[in-house]
């Protein structure tokens, strides 16, 4: 008789690799053969994983349609097995998967749309950031501003795409009834996905200057280097105004000298 472990391994092979040996361990009863009973589990399992992906990637689902999404989910699960009892952790590599997914080659923006949806989920579940201590910051002597390093809000993500993914995302929101057209040649976007104090997740279009500034700070550059990069990216960028805006909206949550 098969041990419990052998039985479990055989069950997994039946569900994930369509192995037929496990059916022999199932009682044929009530007019159903083992293989038919097993198919109930196979369908349930696949449906659970597909639904989990759908929850994280609703716009991808809308863009490709139900049949295609299910097909993609089957392929994804085969390449990226779930490694956690927390279903929330499933699906984090879906954007990278879509990047090289042959069947989606006609939709070159799809992976970036998925990245935007994943970023929103990550921000939704991220840790609480502190409030930037503006009193302590105001005590820093002006001649040392350039040496400051800032900490970005853990509930924020910077994202860039060569496609107008924010527009694509917006026109595919439930309840959107405006103009559906998207000009794929409209150019790329730099986005900040950030959780507001009321816990809602917001997507902001960033100017080239804002983006360069936040990217440099996120990567641990000092304030002088970040400002230089912002001015290079956008010569007319108003650094004091941009900086104040990011402090005010909580994009920066800490600093060190």
């Amino acid at each position: 008789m098969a041990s419990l472990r052998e039985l479990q391994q055989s069950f997994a092979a039946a569900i994930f690799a369509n192995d037929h040996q496990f059916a022999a361990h199932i009682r044929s009863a009530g007019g159903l053969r083992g293989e038919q009973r097993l198919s109930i589990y196979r369908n349930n399992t696949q449906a659970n994983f597909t639904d989990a992906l759908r929850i994280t990637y609703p716009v991808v689902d809308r863009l490709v349609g139900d049949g295609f999404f299910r097909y993609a989910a089957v392929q994804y699960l085969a390449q990226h097995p779930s490694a956690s009892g927390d279903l929330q952790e499933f699906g984090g590599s879906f954007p990278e998967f879509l990047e090289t997914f042959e069947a989606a080659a006609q939709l070159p923006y799809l992976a970036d749309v998925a990245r935007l949806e994943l970023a929103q989920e990550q921000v939704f579940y991220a840790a609480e950031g502190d409030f930037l201590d503006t009193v302590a910051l105001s005590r820093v002597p002006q001649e040392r501003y350039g040496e400051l390093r800032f900490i970005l809000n853990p509930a924020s993500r910077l994202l860039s795409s060569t496609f107008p993914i924010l527009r694509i995302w917006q026109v595919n929101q439930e309840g959107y009834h405006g103009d559906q057209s998207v000009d794929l040649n409209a150019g790329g976007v730099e986005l900040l996905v950030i959780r507001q104090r009321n816990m809602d997740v917001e997507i902001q279009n960033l100017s080239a200057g804002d983006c360069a500034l936040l990217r440099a700070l996120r990567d641990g550059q000092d304030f002088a280097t970040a400002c230089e990069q912002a001015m290079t990216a956008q010569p007319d960028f108003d650094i004091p105004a941009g900086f104040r805006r990011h402090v005010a909206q909580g994009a920066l949550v800490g600093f060190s000298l």
Partner: protein
Amino acid sequence: MLSKPTMSGLGPNPIPARAGVGLRSGHYREMLETLPPVGWLEAHPENFFAVGGKHLHYLEQLRAHYPLSLHGVGLSIGSTDPLNTRHLDKLKRLIERFEPALVSEHVSWGSVNGRYFNDLLPLPYTEEALAHMVTRVSQIQDYLGRAILVENVSSYLQYESSTIPEWEFVAALAERAGCGLLLDVNNIYVNACNHDFDASTYVRAIPAGLVQEIHLAGFTVNTVADRSILIDTHSRPVCDDVWSLYRQTVQHLGAAVPTLIEWDSDLPPLDVLVGEARHADALLDECHGLPA
């Protein structure tokens, strides 16, 4: 008799012996605004494993108004892989933070060789599986430093190797591991239909003292090769047959037991869910009289 004393939710803020409802994100806001008259809430800990965000924010606030039970779905107790201590650590942190009166999981497995099904798969009901479950439940209770409840699951197949009736298996597990039972009356009904046994036999075989919580839910009926199979979807109201079995269960237990209405997909308006809880309360009251 139990080999070890079990905890019956008598810590601070215990679960009352009346109906509660499952906490789902679609109801957070309305629940907090209206504070519906249900006895307690039950949440899936996995939904709160994240380090921050809205879910934790709402649970924190709702916890101030209701007794809480944490009902895990991802621990994969019956797996022959080593226990997932990363998962257990997260559960333990959540228990420390929210102080639930009850913590429960399932008599099932859901992973092997590190690969997860994220599903509640049935075990073969054998002496080997029973011994394995007893060891694992004991390890979990030691790790968490508290007793847990284990729940009977729905199933769509039976193993050739099973030698013990499911009701004997779950009762023996609770007795040997010193844990409590969370008796899911809907799952008993679903299995009785799927595997052609008498649901009353199951209920009568469960020693009353082991049961510390009851679950009720709705199922859907699928057709496989012209045969109806009941699938435990938690997507519908509790059906009349399950209400009858519930009444019979409560009478058999001889005392009112905390009873949860579970509803996970096709989530109804909150008042429908609360209505189901009221119905359970009425049956508890009819059988034993509600506690003051």
